[in-house]
């Protein structure tokens, strides 16, 4: 009898630990089930489309995840996406070269991230304030440049950056953003590859462990020989590079970028995906895999609203409510568990 109880107790413990650590999968499955029920006939290509539509937010989210793991925040990624994608369009229009455009997007992203990182890491300003300021700056530049640059470079549009259709690399570039490999969207594959890369970095490299250590106890990390300032710079630079990659994909998918709307509220979606993925905003905890599921969960919510023919303006309200629900469960769950074990 006693032995049976003990065994039961252990499996309950393991199960609840697993549920706690991988709650993002449970949330994803639940939302996906709602989607499967509401959409008339779940199709393979429809499901694969979730990857496509999660790519930009997901990749930005990976960078945000690293920043959050160190206990910081980056509010500038949405505006950075607008500026970077706009300038990448111009770069493409000048060079007519896909790789050059990619290289530019990554380097420019790194430079933007470096600004955030230096101000947070070495000047020791609060990340919230720094990135709030750069959020305003990046968006403003994106719009200003679009108005004041030679119209030919911006693709002739008045307030939108457009890729020039006549360029020889236009079709391959647009094809990259909209093509599929074995029915899977290329941009979705890139998201999965990047997630795999960052899961590796955070779980199996010394750099990853340092990121967690800085977020968990910065003083302790410093006393173990970690250069905390440099680590903070590095995560902001990585967030910038990933936003650069997301900008490149955005341009490939849309062939244009509207500086007023591109990436608007994306910092919030990225943070939401990060939180839904189980990463603690106070740092030190969470898994990169969760970000993939977090981002996909939000994409599916969009699709459910379309399937139900609801007004898309209700979109953010539903996303917000789900975010609150998930966090409430995450916080209350352990308390309920504790109460249950106490009464047992």
């Amino acid at each position, binding site marked *: 009898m006693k032995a049976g109880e003990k065994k039961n107790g252990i499996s309950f413990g393991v199960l609840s630990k697993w549920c706690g650590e991988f709650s993002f999968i449970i949330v994803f499955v639940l939302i996906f089930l709602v989607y499967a029920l509401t959409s008339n006939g779940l199709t393979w290509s429809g499901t694969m489309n979730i990857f496509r539509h999660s790519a930009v937010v997901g990749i930005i989210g990976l960078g945000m995840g690293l920043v959050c793991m160190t206990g910081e925040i980056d509010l500038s990624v949405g505006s950075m996406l607008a500026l970077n994608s706009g300038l990448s369009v111009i770069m493409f229009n000048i060079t007519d070269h896909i790789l050059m455009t990619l290289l530019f997007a990554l380097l420019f992203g790194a430079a933007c991230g470096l600004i955030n990182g230096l101000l947070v890491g070495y000047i020791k300003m609060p990340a919230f304030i720094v990135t709030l300021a750069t959020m305003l700056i990046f968006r403003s530049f994106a719009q200003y440049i679009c108005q004041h640059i030679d119209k030919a470079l911006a693709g002739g549009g008045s307030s939108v950056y457009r890729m020039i259709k006549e360029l020889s690399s236009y079709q391959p570039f647009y094809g990259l953003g909209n093509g599929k490999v074995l029915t899977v969207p290329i941009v979705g594959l890139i998201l999965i590859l990047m997630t795999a890369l960052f899961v590796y970095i955070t779980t*199996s*490299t010394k750099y990853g*462990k340092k990121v967690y*250590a800085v977020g968990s*106890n910065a*003083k302790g990390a410093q*006393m173990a020989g970690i*250069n905390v300032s440099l680590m903070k710079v590095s995560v902001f630079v990585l967030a910038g590079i990933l936003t650069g990659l997301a900008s490149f994909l955005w341009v490939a998918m849309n062939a244009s970028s509207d500086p007023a709307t591109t990436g608007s509220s994306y910092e919030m979606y990225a943070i939401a995906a990060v939180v839904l993925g189980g990463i603690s905003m106070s740092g030190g905890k969470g898994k990169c895999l969760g970000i993939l599921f977090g981002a996909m969960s939000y994409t599916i919510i969009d699709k459910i609203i379309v399937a139900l023919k609801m007004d898309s303006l209700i979109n953010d309200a539903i996303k917000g409510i789900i975010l609150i629900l998930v966090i409430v469960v995450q916080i209350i769950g352990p308390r309920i568990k504790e109460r249950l074990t106490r009464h047992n």
Partner: protein
Amino acid sequence: MSLLEMNGISKAFNGVQVLKGVRLNVEQGEVHALLGENGAGKSTLMNVLTGVFPKDSGTIAFDGKEIDTITIRQSEELGIAFVHQELNLFNDLKVYENIFLGKEYQNKLGKLNKRKMMEETERLFHELGVDINPSELVANLKTSQKQMLEIAKALFFKAKLLILDEPTTSLNNEEVKHLFSIVNHLKKTGTSFIFISHKMPEIFELADRYTVFRNGEFIGDGAIGDTTPEEVTGLMVGENYSAGEVYEKRKPGEVILELHDFSGPGFKEVSLQVKKGQIIGLTGLQGSGSSELMQCMFGVTEAISGEMKIRGKRVPSHSIHKAMEAKIAMLASNRKENSVIPDMSLLENMYLAEHTLSARRPHIQKRKEEERFEAFKTLLNIKARSSSDSILSLSGGNQQKVFIARWLNTDADILLFDNPTQGIDVGAKAEIYKLILEMAKKGKTILINTLEIPEIQKVADFCAVFYNGRMIKILEHDEINDTTVMLYSTNAVNQEIGG
């Protein structure tokens, strides 16, 4: 009749029995020492008493009244106050605001009567002989003053029983004396104390009676006057305790560490030569510069002048990484703040420092690390289930061993130990000092900064005494004893000569 009678108290967490039917009786107006190693169940019992955890079984009677279930609030109202080891004060509030927090004097409109609160605070401090300005920010107080403030706060609300959890850990000898005089004074007015400490001399100076726990069981109680420190220690640790001398003389190697007129924040013109394999004790009253010297040697702070050489090569100042490359390691004081990475496992905590040195090979070889962890676990006798357990699941002594492993794992030659036995029980302390001697035998050079002279006496080849930022005396192993060290660290020697 006793003020507090706890009988047959049991408590289990997740099926692990932490308290097994223990009892504790505290009389009115006495100081009762609650003794036991870390993990013996002292803290759990105190948490049961103050309503933090409910008990599983047993009875509690306080002031003649039987108490069945108790909440934190009720225990406060009954007059039980817990002065925690980690002080529960609000640094950004003023002294009097901390005392009156949640119980402010106010008029009908909710406007605070600040003057009255300050006056009351002043009166209380005067009674206790405490010298603190009521309108000072708590952040600006010294640790000892914060300790006094916690006690004053408890007394203001008519506490009948104060639980002091290792109150002297961060106090210097002068402050300890002051604290004890206050406790003795309050004892006469009928206040009772439960005194939790690992320092035998203090227990025998202050306590009237004692209760010993071991592994969650009641072992014994009695009057302090009828026992000896050896007997009590024996009860605490069980059979496998030996108070024997651990020190043995070794032959030192060549000079490895030199300080020339080394000055930095908090210490001045320190010159020192240390040979390979030596163990050096640094001591002095708090703020005398010994701990500050260690921090500067490890690159935490920037040196002002002078230089530090290792194997004849100058080590640049103000870079922990450079110090680590020069094969220096530091086990920092204040474990919770400076060493523990709370979200990480034992293995991750142990490997953190090594990772910064081997960052050029970024991939983690999990199996190799597990093997090293197992090796250190055996070597240092770390009591842990699995390398993936949280660091927070270990007792203080075992945590400290993980951090010793962290630094041994970096292959450092010079180990700086700043207050290494802080908050560690007697058994683990002895073990750590035995380890220090073993490491020295294997050629490690070790500097230990501690205020506990008996510990230096056990292991150090010589001891450098600090006073007011300067190293004023070097004592050879045979010269080290409580009185001599105290004479120098209070600078009483020079006053005698001068006077």
